[in-house]
């Protein structure tokens, strides 16, 4: 096995181990034997509930969340030719947050908040696209970047307005949502995120070669027969939709989409097909690890997932910066 393949096998192994640990560890101490029995549906019903109803869907959601963010981040970095691009770039996080805060402040049922967040994200990305179309040099990724920043700033203002005169419950609910969590994971949610991540991820992997070509610049891409505008636009759309789906499912979890593609590249992934797939694996591992830490660091309190991913992500990023020539 080549060294590169060996590294990736190890990465997959690490992911599997983390997934097992995620089910075995938690606020309540369970023996490995109990955990295995519970997985098989035997033994103490409370333990079965803890393992199968609470921990398993949570672990599955974390895997999908990390994979989705990794895939989205890797695609966006490639298509924008920018190592600092990340999944929330085109206003996804701002729009989703506005949607969620509106839902929370209107006292909407818990099941409607993810929908509101998803719709908010889509609305924000659409607005960013419209704003970018209005400017000259539309295809330019920098214009899109700026449009995303504008939409994000607007969204932040909207959130501040909404929260300024809201009652304590709304503020707390909104803040908690924005900090990210896989705590409310249920199999229905997992199923839908799986659909978005697999379909979106599948499309992005299929377009990976186009992303490689886009990386050469728009003129060179045209010279190789690629309609750069169209190719780039559909990557933005699908990558943002995957990101929006992750935000709807679990709130805002930062850093993952930014850092994971760099790790994948460091591990030797070459073309974007490898980077995207590799980012899925590493992203999943990162989020599962972060959720595990969030649960076992200070039991029974739970740290916000977004905070833990940032805490783990920052040192990785610093190492990256030091290695830049």
């Amino acid at each position, binding site marked *: 096995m080549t060294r590169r393949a060996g590294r990736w096998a190890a990465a997959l192994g690490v992911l599997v181990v983390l997934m097992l640990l995620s089910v075995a560890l938690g606020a309540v101490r369970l023996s490995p034997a109990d955990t295995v029995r519970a997985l098989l549906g035997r033994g103490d019903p409370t333990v079965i509930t803890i393992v199968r109803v609470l921990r398993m869907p949570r672990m599955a959601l974390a895997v999908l969340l990390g994979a989705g963010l990794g895939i989205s981040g890797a695609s966006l*970095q*490639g298509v924008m*030719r*920018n*190592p600092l691009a990340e999944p929330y770039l085109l206003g996804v996080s701002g729009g989703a947050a506005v949607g969620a805060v509106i839902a929370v402040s209107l006292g909407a049922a818990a099941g409607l908040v993810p929908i509101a967040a998803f719709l908010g994200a889509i609305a924000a990305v659409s607005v960013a696209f419209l704003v970018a179309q209005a400017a000259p040099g539309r295809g330019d990724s920098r214009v899109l970047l700026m449009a995303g920043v504008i939409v994000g700033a607007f969204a932040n203002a909207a959130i501040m307005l909404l929260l300024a005169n809201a009652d304590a419950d709304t503020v707390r609910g909104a803040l908690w949502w924005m900090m990210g969590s896989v705590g409310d994971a249920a199999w229905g949610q997992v199923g839908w995120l799986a659909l978005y991540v697999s379909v979106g991820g599948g499309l992005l992997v299929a377009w990976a*070669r186009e992303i*490689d*070509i886009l*990386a*050469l*610049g*728009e*003129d*060179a891409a*045209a*010279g*190789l*027969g*690629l*309609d750069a505008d169209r190719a780039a636009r559909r990557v933005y759309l699908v990558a943002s939709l995957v990101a929006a789906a992750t935000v709807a499912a679990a709130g805002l979890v930062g850093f993952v989409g930014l850092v994971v593609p760099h790790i994948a*590249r460091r591990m030797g992934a*070459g*073309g974007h097909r490898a980077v995207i797939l590799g980012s899925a694996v590493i992203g999943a591992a990162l989020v599962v690890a972060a959720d595990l830490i969030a649960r076992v660091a200070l039991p029974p309190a739970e740290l916000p997932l977004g905070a833990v991913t940032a805490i783990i992500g920052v040192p990785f990023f610093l190492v990256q910066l030091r290695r830049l020539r």
Partner: protein
Amino acid sequence: MIAFERVVVRYRGADRDAVHDVSLEARRGRMTAIVGPNGSGKSTLVRVLLGRQPLVSGRVLLDDRDLRTLSRTDVARRVAVVTQREELAFPPPVREYLALGRFPHRGARRAGAAADRDAMERAVALAAVRPLLDRTVDTLSGGEWQRVRIARALVQGGDALVLDEPTTYLDIAHEMEAFELLAQLAHDGMAVLLVSHQLNLVARFAQHLVLLHGGRVAASGTPDDVMRGEVLERVYGWPLVVTRDPAVGAPALVPLRGRPRAAPPYTHRPSDP
């Protein structure tokens, strides 16, 4: 192979044509060069070929087929373009970079894999980049990078090679290397069309020159036809003479000193030699 027929291009919001009534031909087996001062429309013609700039009137033919009737992929299979600059945010190894050149041939016939390998081999041999294959593109020198870019264009497998200012950032040795490679390719049957402001080099290597001025063709023909003092002076707006160096056997342009300008007063400082 590539023919521009009475092409007119105007940028959005401009008050005059970028290219007006330009006709030129780049045939197989020879090197054709488009020259002219900045803003004369040279790069615009390349953008038209890339499909990035629409025509107001006129047409472009690739082997007698109108460009507009061909898909971008079809065009890419026949014509390879080396643009002025490329900056890769995530520099790949040369081997993978070259493989990108096969993109226009993807999904065609599945027998593609063998054709891909052959095209790569041929390009690597022609451009002499084998020793560079395992290096990442950001570790290459200017000259090596240019050869690699030309190699990638060759991997595309077409009959025509179009280059926009290919030697701008290269030193003498690498410039000569590049031009010799291009001359060899032209000699071997490709249609090489290049845009350059290196008049003297172009005069030595190209068989056909087209001089643009203000979007119009000011002169076209062999280097001897085009490299004439009066024409060049008018087009470039600078006093110059055209000489002929016997060692080289091609006309060469030598710019003269401009009108003497009032020089700023020079005061001798103690630290000056």
